[in-house]
């Protein structure tokens, strides 16, 4: 039938694709298990003492040290820390593993925006069975409400991401540019910098759903509202329009570097001064220290630029929880690790290595606020982050299918980056495409 290898391989690949798809679908429909029986703290402790091995999917860099300390404390436990991709890549892998029913990790890092989708899809263990009630008041209100969904608790907050402006002070000093305090000043600084050095850009942007939604959040926009299965999407509201008109100026002037975040070129640009600022979550210092060691001492932190001069508004960007997939093998042991990393000794280890906590005690402690960051030239960056955390605009919510919506962000909004289309119009296309998917999935979309 196939007289040569290429055609045969293609046919084989096509068949495999069909078989895989089929198999995935078959497994996906069979999982309707409900919350398990309560698991007491003693049982979790017993699991920790008995030992075993768990697999953790996470990309947060400070977990490495946590795992080391955890294994030292519980010598019989072996933790396999796997980086299965950052953000969406990992969610795709996780969804596939859950659907296939094999290769599911015991613990997975899931950002707050993605948690509702996984909870709704019945992929995660409801942690209330482990007695999460005792943790009320441990975590800051924002993250704690983010991990709750329909009466259940589907993850423990690991960090939070109140946004701030990270900037390369050397570059700003060299070109005598003032650190922007408003978005208008930010655009002006972008023009001045790029004119002074055509290779340098104020920031990088190739269309990032998380960043865009965070900026809309800060501008006071509330494009997504969710009430059970009733969903409203309006990416043309005042906050969204504010963002679109400002950011459009940067795109029109080609003032943002066309470099994807987390790419090799990105780290290079952060190191050599061609990417001068990042407006990003407070979890960034750990990533800068590990990813851009060469720029130590050059970077500083400032409050997020404002939409109205003199205002004090901020938004969350990213921030993750640790969750336990239902299909994981060893839930009690997994919960032991979860609690250690998010509410136990792990918190301090992670803060010491540059992570930003979601726990009240640490966030308010003097030791935390007064910590000097050598990477930021001895600056007490946590003071700025803590103020940002307090200034986060309330009332934001994500879509219950935000992971999918974000996956088509570049199909729609991304077009404004590579064609003459305007951001405002492409945001509308994103809204329409997301609404269409929502309807197909059985939501009432208004």
């Amino acid at each position, binding site marked *: 039938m196939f007289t040569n290898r*290429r*055609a045969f391989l293609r046919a084989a690949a096509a068949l495999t694709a069909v*078989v895989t*798809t089929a198999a995935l679908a078959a497994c996906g429909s069979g999982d309707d298990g409900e919350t398990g029986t309560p698991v007491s703290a003693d049982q979790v402790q017993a699991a920790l003492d008995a030992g075993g091995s768990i697999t953790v999917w996470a990309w947060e860099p400070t977990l490495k040290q946590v795992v080391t300390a955890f294994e030292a404390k519980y010598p019989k436990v072996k933790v396999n820390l796997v980086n299965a991709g950052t953000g969406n890549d990992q969610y795709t892998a996780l*969804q596939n593993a859950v659907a296939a029913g094999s290769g599911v990790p015991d613990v997975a890092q899931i950002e707050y925006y993605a948690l509702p989708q996984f909870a*709704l899809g019945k992929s995660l263990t409801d942690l209330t069975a482990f007695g999460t009630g005792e943790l009320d008041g441990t975590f800051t209100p924002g993250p704690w409400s983010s991990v709750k969904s329909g009466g259940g608790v589907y993850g423990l907050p690991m960090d939070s991401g109140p946004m701030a402006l990270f900037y390369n002070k050397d570059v700003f000093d060299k070109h005598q540019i003032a650190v922007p305090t408003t978005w208008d000043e930010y655009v002006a600084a972008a023009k001045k910098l790029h004119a002074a050095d055509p290779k340098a850009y104020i920031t990088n942007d190739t269309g990032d759903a998380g960043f865009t939604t965070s900026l809309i959040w800060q501008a006071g926009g509330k494009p997504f509202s969710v009430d059970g299965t009733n969903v409203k999407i309006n990416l043309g509201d005042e906050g969204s329009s504010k963002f679109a008109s400002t950011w459009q100026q940067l795109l029109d002037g080609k003032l943002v570097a066309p470099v*994807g975040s987390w790419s090799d070129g990105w780290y*290079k640009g952060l190191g050599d001064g061609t990417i001068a600022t990042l407006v990003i979550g407070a979890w960034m210092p750990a990533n800068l220290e590990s990813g851009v060691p060469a720029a130590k001492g050059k970077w500083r932190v400032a409050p997020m630029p404002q939409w109205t001069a003199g205002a004090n508004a901020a938004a969350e960007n990213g921030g993750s929880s640790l969750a336990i997939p239902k299909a994981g093998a060893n839930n009690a042991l997994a919960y032991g690790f979860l609690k250690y990393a998010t509410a136990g000794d792990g918190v301090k280890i992670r803060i010491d290595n540059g992570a930003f906590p979601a726990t009240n005690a640490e966030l308010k402690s003097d030791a935390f606020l007064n910590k000097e960051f050598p990477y930021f030239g001895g600056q007490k960056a946590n003071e700025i982050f803590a103020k940002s955390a307090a200034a986060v605009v309330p009332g934001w919510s994500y879509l219950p299918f935000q992971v999918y919506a974000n996956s088509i962000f570049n199909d729609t909004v*991304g077009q404004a980056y590579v064609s003459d289309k305007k951001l405002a119009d492409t945001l509308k296309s994103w809204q329409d495409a997301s609404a269409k998917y929502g309807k197909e999935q059985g939501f009432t979309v208004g």
Partner: protein
Amino acid sequence: MTALAPPTIGRGRPVRARRGRSWTGWAFVGPFMAVFAFVFLAPIAYAIWLSLFRTRLIGGTSFVGLENYRQVFTDPKFWEATGRVSLFLAVQVPVMLFLALLVALAIDSGRLYGRAFFRVTVFMPYAVPAVVATLMWGFMYGNRFGLVGNLNEAFGLSLPDPLSPDLMLASIGNIVTWEFVGYNMLIFYSALQTIPRSLYEAAEIDGAGQLHVIRSIKLPAIRGALLIATIFSIIGSFQLFNEPNILQSLAPNVITTYYTPNMYAYSLSFSGQQYDYSATVAIVMGVLTMIVAYAVQLRANRKERRS
């Protein structure tokens, strides 16, 4: 046991064995049929079965009949993707096959110095996995940190960005051509090698030039190989996936999640969790590919009969 039994029966009661229906043959083809059914037919049947359902986040799975098919035929994303690979097919395949033919004729002519070297070198890219090849070309295409960027910097040029929306399809075509020219060349070359040398001698005696030999002897003789290569290339074009999928990380806004039909099926299944609709897209695309390949074959056969 079964294999030994029939001769005994045949020898003992020849009349009855001839009259009654014998299942012996099935015993021989049975194992093959079982594997064939399990490996080839079952997945296709299952995909068709899947395409009749729809699973939703809210409301679960329900039978929808041919609704998914109706949706595919009115899905602008699917048709945009199909249109794109059709354009790719119309431009890239002729270019690639022409180049392959040219190289095959050159090597076959015997006038090329270092024939074996060229044969191996042109074929080499086929041995490079598509993923690696695309990554390699992706780095070269980069206009900031790649070869294009370096050339721009070194010579003060401003080369167009190969990863921009206007050039992306051509850039992918370039990669695919690079990968498969050698492979098609080898098909043509081996077909050329089967032509009896005596024909060339006869042509020479008749005073035919090289071009005449190519037109009157070589091309007609390898028509079958040309057809096969064309059909494989058609299938390959419609199934375009690896190259755009890898370049997506370099140009996320240019290569959409529905850039080719295969990518569309993949993202429907893996980011949208719409397995049923994905299966439908796969089936429709498979049928379309078969129709186009069959049409080409039919046309070629008719031409052959006429000539």
